[in-house]
């Protein structure tokens, strides 16, 4: 190979390796991707930027411990943290791995008694995104994740005080004095476990991949992680892991989102290619405290454990089963959050929760000698049949973090209901028993906003055998102002894509949810960071596609047959579930359970249309 050719190949390789993972320097007013970023503190604890307590604007101050001037500002950082906290702004120090090891960063924070949480940017992700030039350079983003301040720490306090006003932006881009910081690397030359991979695993994977967790193996240590290096590179690249399918748009992204950036995926890939090295002990961050120790939202107000353990078989098709807790709602209550703990995390794949007020589920249960009953094929819910007796109350999927409703909002639940837990068991080759528990959190103060659930869907589904790309469209005219809190879609096995868009009265489009390559086994409820206001006169459109060809591995028929709407696993559904706060009572002000009456739902639910000319392009939905 000639020298020129070698140089060309090297250039191409470098571009391939580094080109796509570099970030542009953000300018004030531009969108960033800071809120919700999963990082690790110098003490080893997991931090989601701006999401420590609800959701808040966030300020970041880069600290260079080797810069003598930095020391003069440490008191300011502590003081700023206090004042920011009072204003519900999350402030963090950041020590970059470009200047210090994890151990040195931890020692510095302790020695100087920095009370603000300090992020150790081991992967270099924050440094690469924000590209600070000078020590104590500061950044602040608002709730919409726009950069509203970038400049010196002296003016940061003004930005904090001016949050929510235009002043913040006017004071931005102030000159910064201090020690120059090393230039951010798009990707490090050598990727190691201690410096790069462990913080990524601890921030993104450990919830499930720990001993006794939902995942089949633990990734808690280097010894446990190294064998999976190739596999991690592969499944992160294909985005099979972390499991997350929903995409909306900047400004109303999902609060429970769990996605790696392209750069983070490249780190996994490079680590594997470079032999999955452990790296220096100086970069080994402390282990986070296990989050399996208790309930993540604190002590629950109501615990509902399955009456009996269900014996899960070793082999066969996955099991979808419903379990009834009779008279679980002894009094009127207002729910603000639901959490779930699987009895045997190895087999519980996901679950949905329902309330049943006319004992329909318990009657079906009585006919089945085993705990619970199998329902796929004969849905127990009867909301299409004129009954108001059953309605859903959220869902749980592995890795999901429980989310409390915003302050002042709640779901009123009348006394007298049965609680029904639908569990999808993923069989794993050994017999086991499961006895799972649901936790309910109740409002401690009177609520001002009654939250309720809405179904929108169509039964007009008839998918010809062999049809690869069958679409249905339905819509809902929004007849009253509402806040959209979360959204979920539902199909069965052969579902493919989902696109849901709100069109506001002025014609503006709000992309609400896109799911590509639907998988019935990863049904998530997608919670917006903040409720989205959808004014009266808007319209919500949903497009669903199905692949009923023999090429679709999920097709329940070897030789495809026509599939129609129905509850059974070999029938299909097309529905969206919306959790909303209606600003005024178009269903009356009474209990939420009453809203699913068929006659009230009619104008909402029957908006099926064969007009598919307006299927939105994928590019409408962006990260």
């Amino acid at each position, binding site marked *: 190979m000639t020298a020129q050719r070698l140089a060309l190949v090297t250039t191409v390789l470098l571009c391939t390796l580094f080109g796509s993972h570099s970030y542009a320097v953000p300018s004030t007013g531009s969108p960033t991707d800071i809120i919700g970023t999963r990082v690790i503190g110098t003490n080893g604890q997991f931090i989601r930027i701006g999401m420590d307590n609800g959701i808040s604007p966030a300020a970041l101050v880069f600290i260079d411990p080797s810069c003598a001037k930095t020391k003069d500002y440490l008191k300011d950082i502590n003081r700023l943290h206090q004042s920011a906290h009072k204003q519900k702004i999350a402030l963090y120090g950041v020590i970059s791995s470009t200047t210090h090891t994890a151990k040195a960063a931890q020692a510095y924070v302790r020695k100087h008694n920095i009370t603000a949480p300090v992020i150790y940017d081991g992967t270099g992700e924050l440094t690469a995104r924000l590209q600070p030039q000078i020590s104590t350079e500061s950044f602040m983003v608002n709730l919409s994740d726009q950069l509203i301040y970038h400049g010196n720490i002296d003016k940061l306090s003004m930005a904090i005080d001016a949050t929510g006003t235009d002043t913040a932006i006017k004071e931005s881009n102030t000159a910064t004095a201090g020690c120059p910081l090393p230039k951010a690397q798009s990707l490090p030359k050598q990727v190691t476990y201690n410096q790069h991979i462990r913080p990524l695993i601890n921030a993104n994977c450990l919830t499930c991949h720990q001993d006794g967790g939902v995942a089949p193996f633990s990734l808690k240590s280097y010894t446990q992680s190294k064998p999976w290096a190739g596999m991690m590179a592969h499944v992160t690249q294909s985005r099979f892991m972390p499991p997350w399918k929903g995409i909306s748009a900047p400004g109303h992204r999902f609060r429970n989102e769990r996605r790696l950036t392209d750069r983070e995926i490249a780190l996994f890939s490079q680590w594997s290619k470079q032999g999955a090295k452990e790296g220096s002990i100086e970069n080994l961050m402390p282990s986070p405290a296990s989050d399996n120790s208790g309930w993540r939202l604190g002590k629950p107000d109501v615990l509902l454990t399955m009456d009996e353990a269900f014996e899960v078989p070793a082999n066969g098709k996955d099991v979808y089963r419903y379990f009834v807790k009779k008279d679980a709602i002894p009094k009127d209550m207002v729910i603000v959050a639901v959490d779930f703990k699987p009895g045997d995390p190895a087999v519980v794949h996901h679950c949905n929760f329902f309330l049943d007020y006319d004992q329909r589920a318990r009657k079906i249960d009585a006919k089945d000698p085993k705990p619970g009953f199998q329902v796929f094929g004969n849905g127990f819910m009867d909301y299409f049949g004129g009954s108001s007796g059953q309605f859903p109350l959220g869902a749980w999927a592995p890795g999901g973090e429980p989310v409390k409703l915003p302050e002042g909002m709640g779901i009123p639940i009348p006394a007298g209901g049965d609680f029904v837990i639908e569990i999808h068991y993923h069989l794993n080759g050994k017999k086991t028993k499961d006895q799972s528990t649901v936790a309910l959190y109740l409002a401690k103060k009177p609520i001002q906003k009654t939250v309720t659930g809405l179904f929108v869907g169509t039964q007009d589904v008839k998918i010809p055998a062999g049809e690869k790309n069958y679409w249905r469209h339905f819509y809902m005219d929004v007849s009253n102002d509402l806040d959209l809190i979360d959204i979920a879609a539902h199909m069965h096995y052969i579902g493919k894509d989902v696109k849901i868009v709100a069109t506001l009265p002025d014609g503006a489009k709000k992309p609400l949810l896109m799911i590509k390559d639907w998988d019935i086994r990863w049904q998530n409820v997608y919670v917006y960071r903040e409720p989205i206001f959808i004014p009266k006169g808007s319209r919500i459109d949903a497009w669903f596609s199905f692949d009923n060809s023999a090429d679709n591995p999920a*097709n329940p028929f070897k030789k495809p047959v026509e599939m129609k709407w129905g509850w059974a696993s070999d029938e299909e559904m097309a529905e969206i579930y919306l959790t909303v706060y209606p600003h005024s009572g178009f269903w009356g002000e009474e209990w939420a359970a009453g809203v699913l009456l068929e006659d009230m739902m009619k104008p909402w639910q029957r908006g099926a249309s064969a007009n598919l000319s307006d299927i939105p392009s994928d590019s409408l939905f962006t990260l």
Partner: protein
Amino acid sequence: MYIIRHLVISTCLLLGIVIQVSQVAAQSGTAEHLLAGFHALDINQESHSFGNARPKVLIFLGQECAISQRYIPTLNELSTLAKAMEFDFYGVFSDSWATLEKAKQFQQDYEVNFPLILDSAEVIAHQLQPTAKPEAFVFNTKGELSYQGRIDDRFADLGKLRQTFSQHNLRDAITAVGNGQQPDIARTKTIGCFYGGWD
């Protein structure tokens, strides 16, 4: 020409792991028996010789690999079929981090009805070069490799389970070899957990 391979004789201790597999015989350049000279102790210390003239199934498994785990009930059925056709049927853990303790726990938890070999020195893996776990190798009475690949086609990809599947490749291979024939399909791609510790 005889090639004398690296010998791992008897049971020895390396990093606290019992090496249970050895290759003690020289192998002929012309002989086709791919497992000539291989001996192993299973995890219950029973001795097995792989170089004999019985047809064989070796299936590489991962102790923490969910796909391997999920296949055990099927493999238990296939081992019953294979034994009825005079096969030897073995599960092999070929990872340097595989331990005897975990292997025993695996055997108990998943009620495995065939012998499990702990190949933590990766001697068998180096000889056969499996691509993923669980991957099956079927040998005929001459020790020739008749089939290598997946158990069946229930996994379309990692995390993509087919609702119906029709290719029972390992069963077909056992039936063909048991009847003295070559299977129609001799090689398939395995969907499973990657090997991470050896090349």
